[in-house]
């Protein structure tokens, strides 16, 4: 296969490298103890329930998407509360992805790190 289709093999190689890097990145992020900006998708969780968790909510987006600062334990809490996707990101990447980071949606929550 690889011998006959070098372009496909090259593409496969590049995709494998991307997969390896992303896996490494996720593994490193998961190992961190401190809170990180996390992209959360919780379409079936009412906003009140999310706010009730007391976590710093950076952005409340449409269709159940949130930016919430959360530690690994807090991300587990979010998942158990019904969130389907909870992905932590380094702050610069989170900002590139759209996390505003400056204004808290729930001012009662602890102060943000970024």
């Amino acid at each position, binding site marked *: 296969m*690889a*011998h*006959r*289709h*070098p*372009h496909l*093999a*090259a593409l496969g*190689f*590049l995709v494998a*490298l*991307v997969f390896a*890097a*992303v896996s*490494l*990145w996720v593994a*490193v*992020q998961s*190992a*961190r103890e401190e809170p*990180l900006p996390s992209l959360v998708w919780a379409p079936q969780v009412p906003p009140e329930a999310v706010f009730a968790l007391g976590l710093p909510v950076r952005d409340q987006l449409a269709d159940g998407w949130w930016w919430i600062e959360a530690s690994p334990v807090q991300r587990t809490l979010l998942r158990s509360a019904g969130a389907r996707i909870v992905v932590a990101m*380094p*702050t*610069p*990447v989170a*900002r*590139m992805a*759209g996390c505003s980071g400056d204004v808290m949606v729930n001012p009662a929550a602890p102060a943000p790190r970024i």
Partner: protein
Amino acid sequence: MSSARPKLSTALWLMVICGCLIGMLAFGFRSSFGLFVDPVSSPDAEGSFGFGREAFAIAMAIQNLAWGVGQPIAGALADRYGPWRVLAGGGVIFAAGLFLSTMSSDPVSYSITAGLLVGIGMSGAGHNTVLAAFGQLMPPERRAWAMGLGTATASLGQFLVVPVGQAFIEAYGWMAAMMIMGVGMASTPLLALALRPRKEKKTSGNVAAAAAAVSHSVTSTAASLREAIRQAFGHTSFWLLTAGFFVCGFQLAFVTVHLPPYLSDLGISARTASWALAMVGLFNVIGGYMAGVLSERFSRRLLLSWIYFLRAVVTAGFLLLPISPVTTLLFGALMGLLWLSTVPPTVQLVGVMFGSKYLSTLFGFVFLSHQIGGFVGVLLGGYLFARTGSYDVVWWMSVVLAVAAAIVHLPIRERLFSPKVAVPVAG
């Protein structure tokens, strides 16, 4: 690249993969240094050396200079002792520089470790040496493809390793992150073993094996390295190619360093600027690979001419169109396609003109002009901004230089330098 094309042996596949990994690691780690500016140098950051940004910048300038000056020397060593030895040695020096930089708390020692050692290591274990190795070790039918893939993975390294490096810094601190990168580079000698030249059995349908990697038209127009250098510098086409690559370095360095502040001055957010640079990295992967493949099928000088001409068009369009996040991202994507796409046809042109025996050395000299161009681009950008309060002069200078580069490639003679038959060199 049809199925009628000769097959590659497993050993050559392994060589391509390991070479690509070396290039990716070196280019990715070297591109990650920007992440360390504040953690290493800021007097306010916890655990930093606190010697300030200026001292860090000097170390990086030394690193770039050492890379540029070291490239022809590394090339000469690769031509004499084999690329795999230089890749292995370069990787060890690179790793030593990374490790020792974590103990270099004063500006001078930091300049020696993170600057000089990493720069020398980069010239030995960087993607330039890998591409030159492909130019010497791959069968002619697969060289362009391998160089395209090598360029693409180096670009991918820039795109992937930087965020991973950032994650390491945030998770474990900058010293641990630097050491992890050092461990990664220390794997280079192992990977370099796959680039040892070898003779292969001739089996039906296996072309790679057919000619034995070593003798894959390892040709030269010169009997010695000195003669090869003399021939190259006495040949107008080599000067034209070198001049064109100077422009490449000028544009790349200027855009990398000065695009974010330029966009900031025009009211474009830092986030959009980051995305624009990310688009450059992403589309660079596609552009690098495509350039490798295309340079196998079409004239390399014309391909280079088109690349520089399109750079001029894209840059002029970016300057003339109303600035917006959309045009900024579009500029990033289009420049990404044209970013390192100059490398595969340039390496191949050197090989076409002077044979492959001294390819590493001669391309090293061409690359030195690239680094000088980068140095001038960054310096001129800062200087003229300070004098005029705007980057416009340098942007338009970049357009004019790109058109000039497109023109100077046209008269390049794309054939072996010596009108006589090239001298095949065994081993």
